[in-house]
């Protein structure tokens, strides 16, 4: 891995050059693209051009039509209006999704050559495949054993393997759909360095992101969609962030969200020498009523595990002491934690947050169902009422509360996940990435909600990997590095630089 770092530092040096001397030729021209599902028009008259050596940001709120456009580009939808013109013969398109499409138990080499292994007389030629795979992986500056199963590598490496796979298929156009959502800062940097390398090889990159700082760092060209229509397409330097946001949301506003000054109540949650084996050690912290305490940390900081451990998700392996409203508590199951007024919004609504096959009502009442069904008998009317009440403050956009949650957009799903925790009238809310993968409007609504909740005296422990969000929402910030607290800042003391330094383990 040391070699990796070196390779990338070299490439970084070159990349600053490449920004200036880039030769851009059109790779794919999409003209007048339209797509309808039944009577619903999701795309209309969109032009989109991908040029070699260019990072083309595709921006827009959730539901703006980005993924539909990508599916047309990737050939998943064959039935659409308009034309897709490939300019240099058969330009391959590879889409690297948020959810990776690798097969976990199979080796890196098998994955790279899946379905097209080099064969001799019908048998896979293992040695050749291994060498070829190693060559592609090395090209990305990765020094890994290509015979190891993919699932044994961290997500960041898996993503690079997927890129290697795309390269080996001669893909000239690479679509990255929020590739950094599961990466920590150094990994993001490595990915961005790689993107520079890809540019130099003449690839065209389509990049979808909700993170402003990323867009600023790598964008060459930006196209914004809104409600299935093209808002504008312009070189990145001509589109300052404020303007980009106004293009996306269709109205001007300041990026900053004004959190009102909280009125701090009594201590609600206190941890002393709290240990989550393998993740967090000797954690001491307090959260008062009405306070938002931000937990900052890079990947591997143990913050998510700390919340899960506190919530009883790991059973009785936890040591140390926890007080809730000055009463000593010990939770060995989520059910116990919930019964005591603790709610945990997990960081992955699909995997651990919601039951996608159930209705909004069923999800919103799942944690509080015990109270809503005295004697075990459910009362559908009461459940509906409860769901209406908890979703009311969040501007949920859904045709009906009977809708399956899986059919909602990401932002609305997140609101349902939050509604579930409001139902139990929590004393303390643990929020792990409450705005991951949702659009700006929904984000703002969730910020508003957090503000209101603290106004009601609820204490909030917040994890977020987005610095602006952390700075905006937190009244106090506690920084974790490899499972221990390395710094604590008040709102006034905190700065992104100080937080990052502490999160990386630098002495204060």
């Amino acid at each position, binding site marked *: 891995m040391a070699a990796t770092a070196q390779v990338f530092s070299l490439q970084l040096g070159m990349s600053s050059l490449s920004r200036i001397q880039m030769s851009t030729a059109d790779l794919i021209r999409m003209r007048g693209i339209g797509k309808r599902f039944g009577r619903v028009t999701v795309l209309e008259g969109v032009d989109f051009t991908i040029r070699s050596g260019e990072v083309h940001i595709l921006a827009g709120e959730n539901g703006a039509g980005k993924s539909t456009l990508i599916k047309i580009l990737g050939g998943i939808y064959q039935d659409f209006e308009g034309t897709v013109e490939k300019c240099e013969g058969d330009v391959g398109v590879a889409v690297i999704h948020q959810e990776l499409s690798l097969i976990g138990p199979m080796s890196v080499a098998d994955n790279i050559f899946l379905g097209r292994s080099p064969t001799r007389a019908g048998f896979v030629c293992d040695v050749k495949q291994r060498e070829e795979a190693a060559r592609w992986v090395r090209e990305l500056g990765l020094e890994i054993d290509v015979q190891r199963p993919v699932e044994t590598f961290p997500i960041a490496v898996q993503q690079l393997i997927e890129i290697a796979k795309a390269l080996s298929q001669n893909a000239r156009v690479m679509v990255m759909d929020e590739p950094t959502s599961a990466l920590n800062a150094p990994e993001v940097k490595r990915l961005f360095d790689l993107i520079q390398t890809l540019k130099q090889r003449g690839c065209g990159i389509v990049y979808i992101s909700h993170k402003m700082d990323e867009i600023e760092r790598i964008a060459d060209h930006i196209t914004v969609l809104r409600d299935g229509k093209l808002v504008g397409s312009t070189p990145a330097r001509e589109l300052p962030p404020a303007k980009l946001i106004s293009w996306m949301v269709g109205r001007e506003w300041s990026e900053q969200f004004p959190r009102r000054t909280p009125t701090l109540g009594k201590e609600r949650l206190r941890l002393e020498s709290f240990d989550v084996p393998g993740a967090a050690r000797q954690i001491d912290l307090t959260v008062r009523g009405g306070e938002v305490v931000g937990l900052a940390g890079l990947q591997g900081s143990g913050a998510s595990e700390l919340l899960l451990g506190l919530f009883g998700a790991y059973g009785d392996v936890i040591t140390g002491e926890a007080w809730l409203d000055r009463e000593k508590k010990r939770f060995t199951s989520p059910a116990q934690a919930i019964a005591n007024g603790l709610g945990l919004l997990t960081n992955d609504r699909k995997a*651990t947050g919601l039951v996608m096959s159930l209705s909004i009502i069923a999800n919103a009442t*799942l944690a509080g169902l015990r109270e809503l*069904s005295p004697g075990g008998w459910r009362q559908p009317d009461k459940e509906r009422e409860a769901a209406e009440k908890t979703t009311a403050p969040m501007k949920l956009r859904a045709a009906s509360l009977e809708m399956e949650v899986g059919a909602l957009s990401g932002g609305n799903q997140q609101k349902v996940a939050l509604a579930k925790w409001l139902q139990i009238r929590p004393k303390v809310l643990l929020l792990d990435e409450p705005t991951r993968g949702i659009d700006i409007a929904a984000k703002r609504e969730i910020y508003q909600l957090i503000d209101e909740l603290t106004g009601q005296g609820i204490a909030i422990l917040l994890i977020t990997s987005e610095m602006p969000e952390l700075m905006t929402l937190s009244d106090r910030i506690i920084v974790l590095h490899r499972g221990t607290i390395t710094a604590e800042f008040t709102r006034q003391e905190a700065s992104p630089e100080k937080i990052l330094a502490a999160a990386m383990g630098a002495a204060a």
Partner: protein
Amino acid sequence: MTLNRLKQFIGSAAGRASIALALVLIVGIIFNANGAFFRASTHRDALRQASVYGMLACGLTLVIISGGIDLAVGSVLALVAVCSAKMAIHWGWSGWLVVPASLLIGAACGTVSGWLTAALRIQPFIATLSMMAFARGLAKFASGGMKISPTMQNADGTYRNVDVPALFRRIDSRLLGENVSVVTLIFVACVACAWVALARHRWGRYLFAIGGNEEAARLSGVPVRWAKIGAYMASGLFSAAAGLCQAAQEQQGDPEAGTGYELTAIAMVVIGGTSLMGGRGGMGLTLLGVLIIGYLEKILSINAVPDAGRLMLTGVIIVAAVLTQRRRRSS
């Protein structure tokens, strides 16, 4: 407005299963075997024959919705058939003792299956496969490998007959002017119980949540372990009811009874439209599935389709039913 609702119904799982049932009945009307299909007794027997499978399907619906599977239902049926016959015929116990004891045996088997999967985290397929073998073996052990019937061997090698117990005669009787079998009524009661549990009780909602996303359910405070064990226990209870009915109808306890029944019962659940992946389905759908397969069998048998053809046709029709469901779903 009504047209829209009709369209919506046809697109839903219940609508698809209803259409399939209607098709089966139309086939019956066309191939009516010289009017045999129009006789009340034909329908009474079709429903009676489907009832034992249907009881197994009730329990399986609960288990499958929770994301599991129970392969042991046929073997538990045999075990309960043998034990109830032993209690009622050999030992001469009254029905007031035989019924609860039988249900207890079924519930115990189900609880063990549930404990194996929910607490020891053995895959449901494997856990219930083991229970399937074990319960079958236990049935053979309890019966000494023989059918337990009213014909008993004396110590000197001669045979004597004892009366068929009142409990068995009662279960095997008909009501409402000979038009409804008691077994069918027991099945209807099972459907009602399972429906109430799934649609009206907190536990039912928990099963749906577990089947849809077990980890999310656990992190929402759902008592996953108990809910799952409960589902397998219920499956054992319904299998016990089926075993009692089977023994009553055969007037004996056959340790080989119910072999392969689990597959028919699973087919009934799946044809109804309950997803084998868990999280989606319902008791109403299973009732439709039971009727579809029950009537299909009856129509084939009144038309004297030979067993070989019947089996092959059943296989084809199951695939066809599931395929139409899938095609409609994707569009």
